[in-house]
């Protein structure tokens, strides 16, 4: 079984959970004897299209990048196309030579298009379209059995690849436009998503929460939509010992500071807790379009010396932040899955998560609340920092629970879906 997989980001270049999920998933799939051809654009957009930074073509076409990436990825070979799009091709322990040959072909095709359009990705939509174009060429030149596309940015690419090759398409919904923006959906994004879901042979959702959205808001046939919960992979993560810098208890919010993550509920709850006890500090780690508003709100509530912002944290800093925390809170308004509470539990921190998150479907030993229930949130924060036994219980049980969530399980489920769609496809062609 060989899969042509379209992603938008991949470690180490990640801006959110999507890259991490793709990484875990591919690692799991490889164990089920599945070969994967993973395609991602070099320049990825953050979800905020305005903030999209695209690396220009000349920068990409350096050997340096290639060597660097080879080191990082060891046996994974990749193709370098010019422009803002660069697919890495994972051929599972295949050598480089073959793929490098294909490089030039792609380059030629793409060059041609470049001359034709005359400009590069002025906006995200254009990038999506260009990605689809490249996808068609890749689909033409490579042999595979299934196409698997992650999130709306790659749906168009998946559809193109399906048209060119006639192979079945599986799309993987990590988030929908409703999660990202609430009810203020961007119609063009919605349309791409809807089209992707309609054209797909199967739709994989990361939680039942997302499955319901796909069925209810996009009108997709429930039989076609299957939930495969995400897992978490802690391999290669070292345990770090951090000496705490303050004696106070620390309650942490870690994530993008955007509407979707519900930062304002965290702040309001923090204010309530601070009215009752004084030995606690709050940290909001991350950045995002609501950050300024949140800083203002904290100032307005007069808790500037008890509520801290760290800005965007990367790599080790995230571990460090977890290691310093006593409670982790994820008050997401709408979270298709949400991997960070799992990371927190793994770092021996009790977590409070919103019921409006996919991860709450798989966790038993996490405290679940409604994101809007600021009183309950404050109450639980207070309880967890004040009553050590409560906190200990969740830590002990949570650790075991989180270690049982394996990507292998998810991969097995997905492999079944692949088998099903390829069988269906064969039957159709045989008829």
């Amino acid at each position: 079984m060989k899969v042509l997989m379209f992603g938008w980001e991949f470690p180490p270049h990640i801006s959110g959970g999507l890259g991490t999920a793709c990484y875990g998933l591919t690692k799991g799939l490889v164990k089920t004897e599945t070969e994967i051809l993973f395609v991602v654009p070099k320049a990825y957009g953050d979800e905020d299209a305005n903030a999209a930074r695209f690396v220009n073509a000349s920068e990409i076409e350096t050997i340096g990048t290639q060597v660097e990436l080879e080191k990082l990825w060891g046996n994974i070979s990749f193709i370098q196309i010019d422009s803002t799009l660069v697919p890495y091709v994972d051929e599972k322990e295949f050598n480089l030579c073959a793929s490098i040959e294909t490089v030039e072909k792609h380059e030629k095709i793409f060059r041609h298009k470049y001359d034709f359009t005359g400009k590069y990705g002025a906006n995200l939509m254009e990038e999506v379209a260009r990605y689809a174009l490249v996808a068609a060429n890749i689909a033409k030149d490579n042999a595979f059995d299934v196409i698997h596309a992650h999130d709306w940015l790659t749906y168009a690419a998946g559809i193109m690849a399906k048209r060119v090759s006639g192979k079945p398409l599986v799309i993987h919904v990590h988030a929908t436009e409703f999660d990202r923006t609430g009810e203020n959906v961007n119609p063009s994004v919605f349309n791409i998503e809807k089209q992707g879901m309609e054209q797909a042979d199967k739709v994989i959702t990361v939680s039942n929460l997302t499955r319901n959205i796909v069925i209810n808001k996009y009108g997709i046939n429930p039989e076609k939509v299957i939930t495969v919960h995400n897992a978490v992979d802690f391999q290669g993560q070292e345990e770090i010992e951090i000496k705490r810098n303050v004696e106070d208890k620390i309650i942490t919010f870690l994530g993008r500071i955007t509407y979707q993550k519900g930062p304002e509920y965290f702040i309001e709850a923090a204010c309530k807790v601070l009215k009752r006890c004084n030995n606690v500090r709050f940290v909001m780690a991350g950045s995002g379009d609501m950050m300024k508003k949140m800083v203002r709100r904290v100032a307005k509530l007069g808790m500037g010396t008890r509520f801290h912002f760290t800005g965007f944290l990367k790599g080790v800093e995230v571990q460090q932040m977890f290691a310093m925390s006593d409670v982790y809170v994820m008050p997401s308004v709408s979270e298709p899955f949400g991997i960070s509470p799992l990371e927190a539990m793994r770092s021996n921190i009790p977590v409070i998560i919103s019921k409006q998150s996919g991860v709450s479907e798989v966790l038993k030993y996490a405290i679940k609340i409604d994101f809007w229930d600021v009183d309950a949130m404050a109450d639980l924060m207070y309880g967890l920092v004040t009553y050590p036994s409560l906190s200990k219980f969740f830590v002990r049980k949570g650790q075991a629970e989180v270690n049982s969530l394996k990507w292998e399980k998810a991969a097995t489920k997905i492999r079944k879906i692949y088998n099903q769609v390829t069988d269906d496809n064969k039957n159709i062609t045989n008829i």
Partner: protein
Amino acid sequence: MRTICLYFQIHQPFRLKRYRFFDIGKDHFYYDDFLNKSILRKVAEKCYLPANQLMLDLIKTYGKQFKIAYSLSGIVIEQFEQHAPDVIESFKKLAKTGCVEFLAETYSHSLASLQTSNEFEAQVKLQTNLIRKHFGQNPTVFRNTELIYSDEIGKRVFDMGFKAMLTEGAKHILGWRSPNFLYTNTIEPRLKILLKNFRLSDDIAFRFSDRSWNEYPLNAEKYVSWLNDVDEKDEIINLFMDYETFGEHQNKETGIFEFLRELPNRIFANSNFEFLTPTEVAEKHQPVSPMHTQYPISWADEERDLSAWLGNELQDEAYSKIYQLGEKVLKTKDDNLIKTWRSLQTSDHFYYMCTKWFSDGDVHIYFNPYDTPYDAFINYMNVVSDFEILVDKALENPKSAKKTTVKEIAAETKSTTAAKNKIEKSVEKPKKKSVTKKKNASATKKATSTTKKQVVKKKN
């Protein structure tokens, strides 16, 4: 004869380093030493030293006819002591000529005058002591941080023994009246008020090198003709500006030094103006009326009010937090903590948090170490959080806290023992401190716990 009064402000803050949440409780040194030193040295080379030399030359040329006034914040003097003793020496030379007056202000260029506590008076005392020590003058005229003034502040300034005070000739206060006269405080008519002529001051300070200005280029001849154009009945023209105007805001290639060198010559040749220091102005001229100022004014931005430092949520929170700490800080009787607290009061910290960037962004971003006002707020509050922990520790356990803070803040105070002594002098009962501390250790503890209870009560 009509009067020109030249006055220059000199101040550089102790800028804070990038201080993250992770540093709280671990790192008790808050300043960006390297940045502060390099900015100070740069400005010293470009402005303070050459401008002082020029003033000295002018005084030599015109003798007692050419007079100027300076105001130096305690914080900038402290930095000169550390990184630019040559600047202090050149100011001393100027002081000896007898043509230069040094004014009083708050030690840390703070907004303490807006607080009801006597921190304002304490800071003024600190700064005047420092001026006396270095320049042998006892300031008799006061100028508040950024020329902030109100009736209330004026009253307090008079009560401290000052004869006159400088402020902005703000249009919304003056209305139809001219700034070119001497006024008095409303509550205390014995306090004279000198008002900045902002048009003629800003022609030099802001517009001098502005090529889009229809009067560009400005030369001394033209400027004197404008002085002559001022209504004949007007008595005083107060030209107040940042000293950094010469060589820094307007760099030397713009010809600002040549302008300044030529100006007195032209004034003496082509006009009936004389130069006087603020004290002489207050003595020579008769005040024309009281200037009623209910709400504080300043020389900053288009609004000429406090909105550069206070008003948005960030500034209000930062400002109220630092002054809330005051009582606790003073109770520690720890010189280092009190000193740090004062340097955190510097108005520049609040200035960096200003969100009204559109018209006056240029001035606000000058030497601003932060990308956004939000960064400035986050950084400042992290520092204050750590500082609060230090203060609480010092109150809980005076003896051990004293030890650790002295060690940890050693770097900060390594400057000079002189600077330390000066503060000790001003803090009340400094010598008793160590004795009382040992004796009253338990008493202080009690006091802390009660204050804590009170805090909790308040919050509930």
